[in-house]
């Protein structure tokens, strides 16, 4: 592992920091742009990759991906393929107008962009309902509308389980940095002993709460985490609050895996779950 590299907007990514795998195309994460591709005969073609956000460069040799880890408290900027938790503001003939972040223009979610939705079977969402959706496109020019979807537009099926309306439960606001870490921790399997990105809080909560029925969780990259413990019966609310408190505590202070485990036990004891 090379030393961490901090990039500022308009900095070029040095080529020796890029993954050297040439069999697969290089994937660029949000905050990086490909400016030009130089013709060269060497095995690794010289990309000029430019940062458009400040942050720490992170590479994933296995997926041949490179991305920028922005600082944890920045405001969410929609990026294509992000999973977000949006709140329906109002609906028009063809679209639900959703809030992804407060005080920004609404994002559009087509009324037929749900799994198996036809004109007759489409879901009816009221103002204030929550939807777990994927960012389909972010538009090109300034003022362009962000479009969301709950299905894969090519197949018409929900590609990843869980996209669609969220009912019940509670939403907790976390920083965008923690949301990104949670997404990474859930997408890659538990092959690391100490959890991905140093996060073990969800695994620990999962094992501790298994006895009362477990919980459902959806992480939106816009800094929202939806938690539902409706299987837990009487202690559902206390378990949900406990999860929310653990997430906030992890967000606010930089806890080591051991401290996170301790935090989970302590919070569950305090909430009498």
């Amino acid at each position, binding site marked *: 592992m090379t030393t961490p590299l901090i990039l500022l907007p308009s900095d070029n990514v040095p080529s020796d920091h890029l993954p050297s795998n040439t069999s697969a195309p290089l994937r660029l994460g949000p905050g990086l742009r490909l400016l030009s591709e130089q013709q060269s005969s060497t095995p690794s073609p010289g990309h000029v990759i430019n940062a458009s956000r400040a942050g720490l460069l992170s590479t994933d040799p296995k997926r041949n991906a490179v991305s920028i880890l922005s600082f944890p408290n920045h405001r969410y900027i929609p990026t294509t393929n992000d999973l977000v938790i949006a709140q329906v503001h109002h609906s028009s003939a063809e679209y639900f107008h959703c809030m992804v972040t*407060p*005080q920004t223009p609404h994002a559009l979610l087509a009324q037929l962009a749900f799994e198996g939705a036809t004109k007759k079977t489409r879901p009816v969402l*009221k*103002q204030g309902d*929550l939807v777990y959706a994927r960012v389909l496109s972010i538009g090109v020019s300034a003022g362009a509308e962000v479009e969301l979807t709950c299905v894969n537009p090519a197949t018409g099926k929900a590609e990843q389980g869980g996209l669609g309306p969220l009912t019940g439960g*509670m*939403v907790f606001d976390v920083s965008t940095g923690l949301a990104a870490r949670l997404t990474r921790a859930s997408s890659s399997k538990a092959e690391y002993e100490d959890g991905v990105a140093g996060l073990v809080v969800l695994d620990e909560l999962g094992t501790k709460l298994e006895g009362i029925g477990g919980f459902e969780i959806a992480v939106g990259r816009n800094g929202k985490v939806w938690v539902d413990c409706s299987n837990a019966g009487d202690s559902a*609310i206390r378990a949900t*609050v406990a999860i929310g*408190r653990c997430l906030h505590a992890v967000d606010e202070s930089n806890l080591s895996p051991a401290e996170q485990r301790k935090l989970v036990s302590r919070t569950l004891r305090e909430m009498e779950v």
Partner: protein
Amino acid sequence: MNKEAPLSIAERDFILNALREGVRLDGRQPDELRPLNVSFGDEYGHVKVQLGKTSLIVRISSEVTKPRDDRPFDGPFTIAMELTSMGSPAWSDGRQGDLEQYVTHVLDRVIRHSNALDTESLCILKGVSCWSIRADVHVIDYDGNLIDAACIAIMTGLQHFRRPDAVVKDGQVVVYGLDEREPVPLNITHKPLSITFQTFDEGKLVILDANRKEEQASEGDVVIGINNAGDVCFLSKFSGAPVDAIVFVSKSSVALEKVKEINGIIDKALQSDLAKRTEKGLAEESKAENDR
């Protein structure tokens, strides 16, 4: 826009259901305050108050002005508060929202109209000159309960502030600089603070010091302004669902308890700051070298 984004249905229902079980989102008791932190800047009257995640800075300043013609013995005291987009993205600069109007009104009532600051003591020479005291409130971060936080900050600021000494010599007003004469503390008659309660479930559930989400989910609020001696100087129930009269009675005693607790925290912070200042002042005086 000037409006907070509305809560989702799920959040609203969850907060209410949790309160029915006696659980709050951050694990507090219904009558428990968030952690309160009071700190001071370099100058007199510069206070930073953090109540949970709500944080604000208050600056008290003074200047010599001419008193109003109808009140020749009184010095003016104004509280200036502007909610700028620095505090919350929902607030826009330059436009006054409902919240701003409401908070300003309550602060005016609790602190100014209850005569917490003795404005007659600001008079220097009758009808000619007096001190004008101004409190500027800047909201740095907003997570609910702006009224109580602002009240704490202003009252702390008034107690911390020292104005320059001024005397009348042969009909002339002479103002001494802070380094010439020991500055004078303001004359505080009593220390009122406001305590805001949010009500849910048609006034059956009442909680104290709500954060932003709880505030948005609540049906109405009750503000009680009270001082250490238990004198209620302000009481309001402006809008929202009706509340039983018995709530006012029982919550007044809770408010009194909380005001004593908060005033204790303020006094402690003031004393430790004062001790630090005198220590520093003595150290500077005893130094052999000087700036010349």
